[in-house]
């Protein structure tokens, strides 16, 4: 079947909802739990109408206590269920950090492999919506620090549609970070779109002069930057990491070996960040391929501001990505 002829116009939000519906329909052990996921239809309307379709047993509104409902999800997973827990935003997930890090990520190891936690936690991340410093941060890099977790960051409709089911098959906890700016992303999605791998990074655009490495909410900006660069004769390759832990080193290094230059675009802060980790790996594994120092475009090291112009200035934007890439690939200008 030709996917193009049967593609439908849809949104990232809708793709996530399709994935939830599919999971709930296919596996009776799957249930969704979180703040406002039921009657309100989800803070970002991802679970709209699911309560009516699947009932209160499987679409469960929770009290405003992240630690409690993430802990409940861990318990359910331990007992053989396949819970999907939604946390409204990554800033609030810190209230559940003890459950995530000290229980979800460790129990397999501490039980000598006797117990596993097949739990999926979804949460919104990222800034750009004038929600100020308590709702706008990108802390997925922090979670990528923790052994025992898998961190995925769908950035396309296909990944929004396909990552959930694969994550549910993982016997260990998977955290899915949905950049909140992406929910309204529109595009074509094949009617037969389904599960996708959550192991490998994807080259979203081929190029020969510089590798732009990014993920999640920054992918669109990075692709735009690559387009601008192409008009100036710089052919940028764009890598969507997709999975932040474990990182797909091979795809990164293969690209760096081709372009000899890299810029990392990460909405997190620079210090002690995922961008720093990727730089370190490039240094460790591809030092002799480098023709220029690796550069980063990250968020300014401030709490994300409320004022629009300040917020825009604090987050990675297309002109900054273009500028960084040109500086690194100056030999090609």
């Amino acid at each position, binding site marked *: 079947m030709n996917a193009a002829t049967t593609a439908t116009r849809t949104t990232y939000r809708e793709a996530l909802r399709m994935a939830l519906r599919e999971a709930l329909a296919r596996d009776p052990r799957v249930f969704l739990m979180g703040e406002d996921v039921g009657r309100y239809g989800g803070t970002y309307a991802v679970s709209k109408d699911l309560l009516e379709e699947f009932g209160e047993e499987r679409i469960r509104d929770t009290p405003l206590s992240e630690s409690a409902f993430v802990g409940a999800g861990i318990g359910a997973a331990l007992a053989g269920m396949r819970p999907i827990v939604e946390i409204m935003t990554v800033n609030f997930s810190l209230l559940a950090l003890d459950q995530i890090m000290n229980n979800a990520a460790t129990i397999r190891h501490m039980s000598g492999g006797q117990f596993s936690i097949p739990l999926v936690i979804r949460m919104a991340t990222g800034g750009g919506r004038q929600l100020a410093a308590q709702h706008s941060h990108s802390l997925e890099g922090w979670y990528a620090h923790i052994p025992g977790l898998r961190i995925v960051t769908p950035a396309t409709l296909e990944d929004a549609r396909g990552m959930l089911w694969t994550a549910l098959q993982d016997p260990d906890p998977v955290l899915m970070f949905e950049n909140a700016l992406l929910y309204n992303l529109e595009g074509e999605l094949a009617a037969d779109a389904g599960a996708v791998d959550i192991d490998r990074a994807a080259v979203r655009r081929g190029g020969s002069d510089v590798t732009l490495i990014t993920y999640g909410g920054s992918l669109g900006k990075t692709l735009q930057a690559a387009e601008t660069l192409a008009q100036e004769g710089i052919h940028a390759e764009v890598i969507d990491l997709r999975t932040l832990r474990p990182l797909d080193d091979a795809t990164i290094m293969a690209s760096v070996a081709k372009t*000899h230059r890299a810029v990392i675009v990460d909405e997190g802060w620079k210090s002690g960040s995922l961008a720093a980790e990727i730089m370190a790996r490039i240094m460790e594994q591809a*030092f*002799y*391929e*480098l*023709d*220029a120092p690796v550069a980063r475009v990250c968020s300014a090291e401030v709490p994300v501001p409320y004022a629009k112009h300040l917020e825009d200035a604090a987050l990675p934007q297309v002109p900054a990505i273009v500028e960084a890439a040109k500086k690194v690939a*100056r*030999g*090609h200008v």
Partner: protein
Amino acid sequence: MFEFRMPSLGADMEAGTLVEWQIAPGQEVKRGQVVAVVETQKGAVDVEIWQDGTTEQLVVQPGQKVPVGAVLALLRAPGEAPGAAPIAAAAPVMAAPAPAPAATAPAVSAPPAGAPRHKISPSARKLAEELGIDPASVQPVAADGVITREDIERAAQRRKGAEPKPAADWHVQMRAAIAAAMSKSKREIPHYYLATEIDVTPAMDWLAQENLRRDVSARLLAAVPLMKAVALALREVPGLNGFWTGGAFQPAPAVHLGMAIAMRGGGLVAPAIHDADRKSLDQLMAALRDLIDRVRGGRLKSSEMADPTVTLTSLGDQGVETVYGVIYPPQVAIIGLGRITERPRVEQGKIVARKVLTTTLAADHRASDGHRGALFLAALDRLLQQPERL
């Protein structure tokens, strides 16, 4: 202060291209040290210096082509104070400096102490090593002075353009050099030719016995006792070992035996084995092996190219019975060795099988007469009858 000049690496050499310095200003040099690589028509040659000293100034830069005798560098004699250098007029440059030195050997030239460290990207450094380009010779394009892959690629590209295309053109050049030398020889040198059949049975039998008691790695080639006998005979019979220059024969004080060696892919060189008459058979064997290796690898020393006093050519391995040599000017003789064959000979009325070698001499009649040539061949014959004394 003394001058180090472009040496003549063969009578037919008019100019050479400095490929690479192996010394830097301030560096001490010892007599016999290889200080530079020079590209000639016959390939890249390691050039030695023949005086101790300290490098004061490198006058010619890699890539420049200068005539024989041009000052390449100024050096201080031992004990001389630095700085008093009269700046010699730069050698007349025959060609625009090539941007990058040809890399016969990708030498990593260490910058002199205190020189600023080159900024070069790791990838560019790796590429430079792969392409045999000395990063120190590369001019970065970017204002920040960092050498990138692109700079190295550009240097490689330029080198490709500046250099004669290695395979084809190089052979053309070598052919031209041989043509010039041999034309001069046949034009100017009145050759006379003598040939004699030498019974080498005792020499070959002795060699077989000798090799039996040796390790495989230490065995001698048949050429080695022949070389030694030729060298000794040349010492014994003067007049064939030396040069015809300025209308007179100049005998050479030592026997530097030029060994005609065919090069892979065509061409011919005849570098010297120095003092062949004074070397033991083992030393000759080692010298021959080393020379052949380096001829095939394209790295000869300047002294080897410039010093031969006579040439020995052997085509016996190719089945040739008799070689009629052409003298390499300004030498005055060339000895040719053919194939060793077993032949019936009559000795004291009996027919016996003997191992026989046809030995020829082509000599310059200006420098010697047939009588002298005959004495030489007789001496060679006699020496080969007592191989254990070689």
